[in-house]
């Protein structure tokens, strides 16, 4: 079976705008004036038609008002002839096919325009005459002269990041270095005049491995078993033990939850639109689960890339595979959107822009979207490259869902029922279904009645109409989410190709009404062989498949480098290129360029296995250094750019919360089905769904499964710098605020965890509680002084829960040495 099922996927038809973008997104130009546009025709238009359009239509259908209701603008000839959702507004000499004419006729069974009342008969007659004479209209968009780029792309190829990756030979061995990675680092130690500190203590190493690989603390038993094996072992034996532990952790499903979450920072994953109005994405969770599974399965990174950009177009062996690949394209659908935007053209252009920005930053560490309005100011990316990519995304349909009743910009979702994906929603019982049907029918009937009254000239309150429409649409959409027997349909956020690619023009200064030359679909010139950057016209479909293959290619100098650097960042705490999302001129240069290329080459060599790269880094002596301070090294390299010690870091918000749950024994390791937002319902925050309800969701599952509504992140995540997902974000902030302290001191969630922790301790003999507590929280026994402090606190009347909470409040609990 091949990839033909893509277009055969069935459609979920709850929204109303299918295909409208195909019409509005395309700048159709008519360079020559047709014959009817003689002087008399134009005079007729100017005196009889233009004033009518301005007075009665522009308010809702013009660039000036910023509105294009129903996808229609009437302020240019192209826009009128292109029309809107219901087809061309004006077809010269055809009254029948001109929907504008039908609307002004105010027929019983069609659209009636203008909404405030029928135009006087002579005006309607003018419109008729105008269409019959060929609809002369001088409002033609002029094509601007072709924009030339001043960028020397050939010279740009010399920049380090765009040169091909050549696997460097590691520098010569040193007594300190154990692995090839160490030999690169050791060379930089010598060059910079720093000396590596001691290796990490076994306990610290075990804790580091558990947190870095799984995001959870080791249990006291884990610590005891592994440190016993590591203690006093010679390096070679120690290495064997570490290999065993690393492999055990990489095989744990907890690894994917931890590393999948890292990728979700990059993928700006969130479950709402987060723009002008913040509508909940009820179906984004599928992408979340797909990412976690991909990391657990060690999906080769090149496949991982391709699935997210063009999963719907990849060759497949089964329906199930297509379903999973479709979910992966969720990557392109989950970004920030201004769904309250009235102008569909503008919305569509911004959607495409967001896709270009996220795709190029996430996979290529490149800010192509900076070239939307002019050549990139810093990097060798001509403006035309942006429009070459835009041509690919413009030829793609993005299905992000939402209800038209809640958002001006809404789309269908892809119905992937029967392809082996979980429903994520329980079945609808017969009674509930009957209730929904009754509710919908009643809203429909009342709406029809109101419309009849309006037509007969009665004054009906606009708000009431809006309410009825919402009610009808919401219940209809709720019903459409189920089969007639009540089984939930599988609805997926994802992309599909249009039937044919849309021609795309470069826009002068990025302005829609200033089109210049046509730009063929294509890729970035600086990353492709000379003269080979544009797709041949014959390429069918959007070109996303070609884009995906190009990004995921071994020949692309950036993809492997950027990912190897991300893996290093997630392992070590700081990338070799610190600006993980910007490998351009304004980003940082690599501190260890040869090591970066070595890692990139290794990634590719090992069939793009991320786990292999993680493993190789974990086994290096560099990674296993202690985080000890060292005066002389600090004086030379205070930032530890040259890795004379391990970076000490604060745990991420998710790991802090998960660690509290783990220590208290409350952690629920089962993956929830679907999203916790299901109970919140569809709609915009503050409009249909309310913040107190979202914030009221309490669970003890891992933090990666918490609801992620932009701007309404759970407090435990928000306070500790989880990104709000406005943008690709490969590096997290680490801030320290009093609100974090108040949370740890006073929040009921923390107090409950402390209570659970205390219960676990209560079983231990009183004398051993402090030791046990330290083992549980810090993965090590207390120092003498800590033991005394703890015992004195408990002996002096402090209760066990307070003691446990105090340990959660310490700096060490949040820190990884």
């Amino acid at each position, binding site marked *: 079976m091949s990839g033909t099922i893509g277009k055969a996927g069935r459609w979920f038809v709850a929204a109303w705008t299918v295909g409208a973008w195909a019409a509005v997104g395309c700048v159709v130009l008519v360079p020559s004036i047709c014959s009817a546009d003689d002087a008399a025709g134009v005079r007729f238009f100017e005196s009889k038609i233009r004033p009518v359009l301005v007075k009665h239509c522009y308010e809702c259908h013009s660039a000036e008002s910023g509105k294009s209701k129903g996808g229609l603008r009437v302020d240019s000839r192209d826009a009128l002839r292109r029309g809107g959702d219901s087809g061309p507004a004006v077809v010269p000499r055809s009254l029948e096919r001109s929907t504008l004419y039908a609307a002004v006729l105010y027929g019983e069974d069609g659209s009636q325009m203008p909404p405030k009342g029928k135009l006087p008969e002579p005006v309607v007659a003018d419109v008729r005459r105008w269409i019959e004479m060929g609809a002369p209209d001088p409002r033609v968009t002029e094509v601007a002269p072709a924009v030339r780029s001043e960028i020397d792309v050939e010279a740009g190829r010399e920049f380090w990041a765009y040169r091909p990756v050549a696997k460097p030979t590691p520098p010569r061995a040193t007594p300190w270095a154990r692995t090839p990675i160490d030999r690169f680092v050791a060379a930089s130690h010598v060059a910079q005049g720093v000396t590596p500190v001691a290796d990490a203590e076994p306990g610290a190493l075990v804790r580091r491995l558990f947190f870095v690989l799984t995001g959870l603390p080791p249990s006291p038993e884990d610590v005891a078993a592994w440190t016993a094996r590591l203690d006093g072992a010679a390096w070679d034996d120690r290495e064997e033990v570490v290999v065993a532990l690393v492999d055990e952790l990489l095989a744990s499903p907890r690894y994917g939850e931890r590393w999948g979450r890292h990728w979700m920072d990059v993928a700006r994953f969130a479950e709402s639109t987060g*723009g*002008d109005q913040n509508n909940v994405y009820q179906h984004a969770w599928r992408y979340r689960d797909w990412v976690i599974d991909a990391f657990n399965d060690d999906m080769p990174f090149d496949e991982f890339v391709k699935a997210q950009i063009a999963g719907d177009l990849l060759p497949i062996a089964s329906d199930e595979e297509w379903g999973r690949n479709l979910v992966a394209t969720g990557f392109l659908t989950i970004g920030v959107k201004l769904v309250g935007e009235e102008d569909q053209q*503008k919305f569509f252009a911004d959607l495409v822009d967001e896709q270009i920005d996220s795709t190029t930053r996430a996979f290529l560490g490149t800010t192509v979207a900076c070239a939307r309005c002019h050549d990139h100011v810093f990097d060798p990316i001509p403006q035309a490259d942006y429009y070459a990519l835009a041509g690919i995304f413009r030829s793609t349909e993005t299905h992000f869902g939402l209800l038209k009743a809640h958002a001006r910009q809404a789309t269908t979702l892809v119905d992937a029922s029967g392809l082996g994906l979980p429903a994520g929603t329980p079945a609808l019982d017969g009674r509930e279904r009957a209730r929904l049907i009754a509710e919908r029918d009643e809203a429909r009937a009342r709406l029809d009645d109101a419309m009849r009254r309006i037509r007969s000239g009665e004054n009906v309150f606009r708000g009431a109409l809006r309410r009825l429409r919402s009610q009808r649409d919401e219940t209809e959409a709720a019903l459409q989410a189920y089969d007639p027997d009540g089984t939930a349909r599988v609805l997926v956020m994802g992309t599909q190709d249009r039937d044919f690619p849309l021609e795309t023009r470069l826009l002068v200064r990025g302005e829609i009404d200033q089109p210049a030359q046509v730009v063929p679909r294509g890729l970035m010139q600086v990353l492709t062989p000379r003269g080979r950057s544009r797709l041949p016209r014959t390429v069918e479909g959007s070109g996303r498949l070609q884009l995906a293959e190009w990004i995921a290619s071994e020949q692309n100098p950036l993809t492997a480098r950027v990912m190897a650097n991300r893996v290093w960042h997630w392992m070590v705490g700081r990338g070799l290129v610190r*600006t993980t999302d910007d490998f351009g001129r304004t980003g940082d*240069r690599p501190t260890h360029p040869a090591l970066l290329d070595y890692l990139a080459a290794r990634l590719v060599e090992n069939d793009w296995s991320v786990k292999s790269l993680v493993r190789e880094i974990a086994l290096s002596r560099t990674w296993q250094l202690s985080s*000890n*301070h060292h005066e002389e090294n600090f004086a030379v390299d205070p930032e530890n750019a040259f890795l004379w010690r391990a970076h000490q870091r604060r745990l991420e918000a998710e790991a802090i919360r998960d660690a509290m749950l783990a220590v208290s024994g409350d952690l629920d390791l089962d993956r929830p089905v679907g999203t916790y937002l299901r109970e919140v319902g569809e709609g915009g925050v503050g409009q249909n769904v309310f913040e107190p309800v979202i914030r009221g969701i309490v669970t003890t599952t891992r933090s990666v499964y918490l609801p992620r509504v932009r701007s309404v992140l759970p407090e435990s995540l928000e306070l500790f710098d989880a990104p709000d997902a406005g943008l690709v974000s490969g590096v997290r902030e680490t801030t320290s605020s009093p609100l974090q*302290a108040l949370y740890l001191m006073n929040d009921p969630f923390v107090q409950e965890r402390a209570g659970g922790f205390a219960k676990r301790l209560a079983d231990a003999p009183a004398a051993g509680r402090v030791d046990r507590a330290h083992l549980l929280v810090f993965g090590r026994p207390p120092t003498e002084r800590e033991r005394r402090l703890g015992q004195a606190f408990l002996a002096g009347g402090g209760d066990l829960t307070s003691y446990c909470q105090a340990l959660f409040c310490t700096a060490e609990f949040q820190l990884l040495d």
Partner: protein
Amino acid sequence: MSRRFCEHRIAAGTRRDALKSLSAGFGYLAFAGLATAREATSSPLAPKRPHFAARAKRVIFLCMRGGPSHVDTFDHKPRLRTDHGRPSPYGTPWSASKFDFSRHGDGGLAISELFPNLARHADDLCLLRGMHCDQPAHAQAFVQMHTGSFQFVRPSMGAWTLYGLGTENQDLPGFISVNPPTATGGAQNYGSAFLPAAYQGTKFTVRDGSQRNRRIDQLRRGEANPYGIENAVNDRLTKAEQRRQLDLVAALNREKLDRDGHNPLVEGAIESLELGYRMQDAVPEIMDLSKETEETLSLYGVNEDPTDGFGRQCLLARRFAEAGVRFIELGHGSWDQHSNIETALADNCAETDKPIAGLLADLKRRDLLKDTLVLWGGEFGRTPYSPDGNGRDHNHKGYSTWMAGGGVKGGFSYGATDDHGYEAVENKMHVHDWHATILHLLGFDHERLVFRHASREMRLTDVHGSVAHDVVA
């Protein structure tokens, strides 16, 4: 696509060559330098000096979301009365205000009858009647009013103010936003975006006990929380018990610090724990209105209908200002009167008129008005035409806001709309100019208050903005 879009993403041409020649890693180094400077002063929130002598030390922004109608409040248009019902060029007929205007104070400012109490402070008001912004949609205009950008996530003006000036009370947040909306941009409106998170606003929730708003208030903001923020107090431990607990934490942290030698992360944690501890006293204390006199409470309309909600907010704003909070924003709305303007607008004014007048009077008698810049306004105004005379649509081309105190001229009016109040035509003040002027009053050159991010120097005013020097006293 608008031109603005592009300017937001990358600096305009003139800086191109200069920036291109900067060495690699400049962005990081700039930040690293800032981080070091911060360590030296120990807190990013320590008070800092502006570029030049400031007229205002703090800001109270009375944010009227929804777009208050200027032609019914502060922009008197007699021409609308003459032309009432006649066709306007915009589709629907001109519509006169249903409210009377009269002149107030020595400056003779025309103010509508909807603000009888505020009108008594006319000589403190500096009306800005030539405001305009870029978008007639709520969310975009609201976010632009707060951050300068309607398209990208940018720091709000409170965050910029805090970044520039620090704060004077280390036991309270330096930037407080009371009852901000969750829609129309939500947390972006008090966010710090790329500025360090220490500069983001802290959301306080204040309940509205008035008859009219009690129910909807609960739906939006949840159960009443007397402290305004989550986790302000500990329900489980006594103060002494908690102090003991935190002493243990501090001792354990010091133990860690001794072991590690040098560790800024631990030092930061020790400091924020102590600040959190102090906030537990400071927040409930500042939120507790019980020590205010009856006279003061009634000055603001607290415990009265319909002024209780906004009265509490205004009184709290004075308390915050007194305590040294740098930027205080209060939220009221919605002023989005597409219909029922006669009753709904009158209701809004009735809810806010007395509290605002009370705030100005109270600030003045405590000698705080001279260096507190009070701002009033919404994201745009409303159209002077109307389909039925009952409601007005959004109008971003011309509207009014006002300033008071903080070194602005009182009894003064700056800028004007056309005869009908449709479009700003004289001394126009774009929202970027408004930002530039606010920063100027706070002692900043808006072109020099910058933060390096995404490879360029970012400003509240982006590449726009000019100071309206005429409004400065």
